[in-house]
């Protein structure tokens, strides 16, 4: 896919329309700024939604796809409920993040991206979330000692979850999950294949 996008031309907008979930809505934004003003995390974003939409129109492909911004979305849906043009902004944010990720341009160390990947690997493996493994992988993703420190800091929550049966220590050793895991994996592999072919994605990551 070309990255030599001409400015203020439709090239990148068309790419987004073709490949990003709900991307065909981007052109309908009227730049009122209500979404950016409504987002509880708006201040923390480098490029809040309104700006991302303008950047797409301005053809700023690399800046948009490499941005940390859309990874900030917490799916609170404030923006969607307020957008006068009815854009499914939350979905577009996730669509953009996903697209950037599949292209391999997404920022590698973005914590949301890493969590999302750990979560996906976890659930795609057995068809069900294994909380114990998920927590441990998350805590220890930056090395052993950091992991210990994180676990120690979270010990009260962890113990509470253990006591109420929300965290099963045996989960570490039991496979768990759905009955026909093999078929789920096959199904997902096929879905990837279709999407990869259609959207011309390279290696998955």
């Amino acid at each position, binding site marked *: 896919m070309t990255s030599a996008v001409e*400015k203020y*031309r*439709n090239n990148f907008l068309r790419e987004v329309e073709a490949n990003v979930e709900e991307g065909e809505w981007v*052109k*309908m934004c*009227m*730049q009122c700024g209500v979404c950016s003003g409504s987002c509880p995390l708006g201040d923390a974003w480098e490029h809040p939604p309104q700006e991302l939409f*303008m950047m797409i*129109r301005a053809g700023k492909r690399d800046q948009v796809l490499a941005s940390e911004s859309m990874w900030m979305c917490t799916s609170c849906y404030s923006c969607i409920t307020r957008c006068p*043009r009815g854009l499914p902004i939350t979905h577009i944010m996730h669509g953009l993040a996903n697209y950037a990720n599949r292209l391999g341009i997404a920022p590698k160390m973005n914590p949301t991206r890493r969590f999302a990947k750990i979560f996906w690997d976890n659930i795609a493996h057995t068809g069900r979330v294994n909380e114990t493994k998920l927590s441990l992988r998350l805590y220890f993703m930056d090395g052993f000692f950091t992991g210990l420190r994180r676990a120690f800091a979270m010990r009260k929550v962890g113990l509470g979850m253990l006591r109420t049966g929300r965290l099963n220590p045996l989960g570490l050793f039991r496979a768990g999950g759905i009955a026909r895991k093999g078929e789920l994996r096959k199904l997902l592999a096929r879905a990837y294949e279709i999407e990869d072919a259609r959207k011309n994605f390279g290696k998955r990551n």
Partner: protein
Amino acid sequence: MTQQAETAEPKIAAYLCAGCGLGERLDLERLAKVAAEAGAGAVEQHEMLCGEDGVARIRGGIQDGATHLVLGACSRRAKTGAFNFADDGAAVARVNLREGVIWTQPEDAGETTQEMADDYLRMGCAEAKFMRAPRAIAADERGANKRILVVGGGVSGMTAALEAARAGYEVLLVEKSGALGGWAKSLHRRLPRRAPFSAPAENDTAELCAAVEHEKNITVFLNAHIARTSGAPGRFSADIAQGENTRTENIGAIVQASGFRRYDASQLPEFAYGKTPDVVDQMELEALARAADENGAPIARPSDGKAVQSVVFVQCAGQRSEKPGHLPYCSGCCCGVSIKQAMYFKMRDSEADANIIYTDLRAPGNGEDFYRAAQEMGVVFTNGAVERVEAGTNGAQLAVHFRDHVLDEDAVARADLVVLATGQVANSGVDISAVEKNEDGEKEKNGNGKDESAEKKPAQVSVPVESILQLDYRQGPDLPHLKHGFSDSHFICFPYETRRTGIYACGPPRRPMDMHQAMEDATGAALKAIQAVENAGLGRAAHPRAGDLSFPSFRRDGCTQCKRCTVECPFGAIDQDAEGYPQFNESRCRRCGTCMGACPVRVISFENYSVDTVGQQIKAIDMPDEFDEKPRILVLACENDAYPALDMAAHNRIHYNAFVRVIPIRCLGSVNAIWVTDALNAGFDGIMLLGCKKGDDYQCHFVTGAALAHERMGKIDDTLNQLQLEPERVRAFEVEITDIARVPQLINDYAAKIDEIGMNPFKGF
């Protein structure tokens, strides 16, 4: 003594109503005595004066010889139907005891309420004594011509002509070019007028032209202009010049639909207009689109004929800008036009890029649907301000440099073609106020009437200088402008009214607008023209005192020929006769009384409104002496807004100070300084002038009346000075009809202020 007093002694009959609580709250016996003392030959009470029986009693009085009626009941704005004795030939003074007294005074107020009523009744008797029943303009002086002249054959003019013709009026349509259709006929497509507002519509101007040509009530004059216009509503006469021939036609009213001129884009070198043919304005793009359509080819770049693959629209080009030579205003229609034109490209080739760079996209009403439709087609809308356009060399693309307002950075967009959304300049004739200034030597202009230095100043619009109507009025050949070359009209309440009665502007001479708006406008103007010829035929005033039968006249032997009336009349109703005396054109007059307020020797009057009818009311008010601690405040309240606001306050039972005496006046402009001087000399402690807003966004129903009154206030300050009175003793206030709670509050605050500064020392002299 003015001429009123010279007529036969009036026979006054007073009627007092006991209905609506008046009987309970007021001592009617005492009022009856007051009326008798004030000169009423007969006084009658009735339990419900506005009822059939009450009205019959009044008619009985007229039969018994009463020439003047004093009706002590409700406000003059109430029961106008029941208390209309115009056909009986009686003069009527309404005494506002209901809204003016019992509804605005608390029930336990005691004697002050009765004193108020007594005063108002005395005032009514005094007013009656000095008025006559209005007679309407004499039948032989009325103009009865009902033909309508439409100047301009574009969509506005054609629509006005058709509307008037289909309503049964004969129309003369004068067009300066060789064909009907104006700008509209050269459009490729027009803005959609019907749902779903999702694509440009067919240009149906040709059908409109055909309809005009086939309409038997319309006579079209092409290649023609107006060489002279004179007269008044119902009896205008216009010289229509067509080449060598000039013919004089008589008409009753005029619709000025003279359209607009394209802003001259060569004043925008920063956008490379004129440097490359690939920068065009919106009209030029229409031509390109039409040519493409005729050839069945894509829209071609003027420089090399290459199909346009990318186009950038520059909104507000030379508009909404204070830069020299730019238009300071928004032309209101160019956003819609750019959206339409961007669609020309997207509908031919969805791969083409169309980018509209705007600061505010103004697509009101259904324009919003149209805007959305363009977005759906993939037109890109970029919020930003274009700084410059660079022409590419050797077939290279143009570079549009702009500030992206969302991304807050400088950016460049490249395109094959750039379209400038330049604005409309009103084609509204000579700016007579500039000419006036020129006459006064205030501002020297060069021979062609254009002021070079003014043109370089920011926010100055150079307006076309050839006259459109060639009026032979003393006040100048065209409709007065408000600003930026647009004809003055009462924007909010009476949009089609100009400051020349019987002449109605519509379309872009009034304000910038699109075709659809211009057609609506034209319909309105046609209806106003019809109204004008009908009113003129009956000898009655047009708006805003529609139906008023009174008109001003002046006492010739007192007139000093100072010309103040001719200059200050907001409507150019007064010419000058051969001997230099003012010549009133009754049917041009709106009956505001501004001339009456202006006249230093007080010789102008209406039958039922004069220096005396108000002055004698002021004198009739009982003036308690200084030690009674009952100050008196005179309120002169404009009948259009202030007085209705007071009436509505009364309907809401909002109380106000009992020491005020309110006299309704036609307009602040009609206030003659003598009233103020007399009131101060008579011992009034304060005078409030309640009028409408003045200035560029004026609300004054007579346009300049309020402003003139404020100017004249300067002289009143001199009077106060001479009398060694505090400046607060006379105050003018701007009020609106909706100020229902504010006006009573103003009165109370002012009364408190007067309390503070103390009584007028002239009491009892």
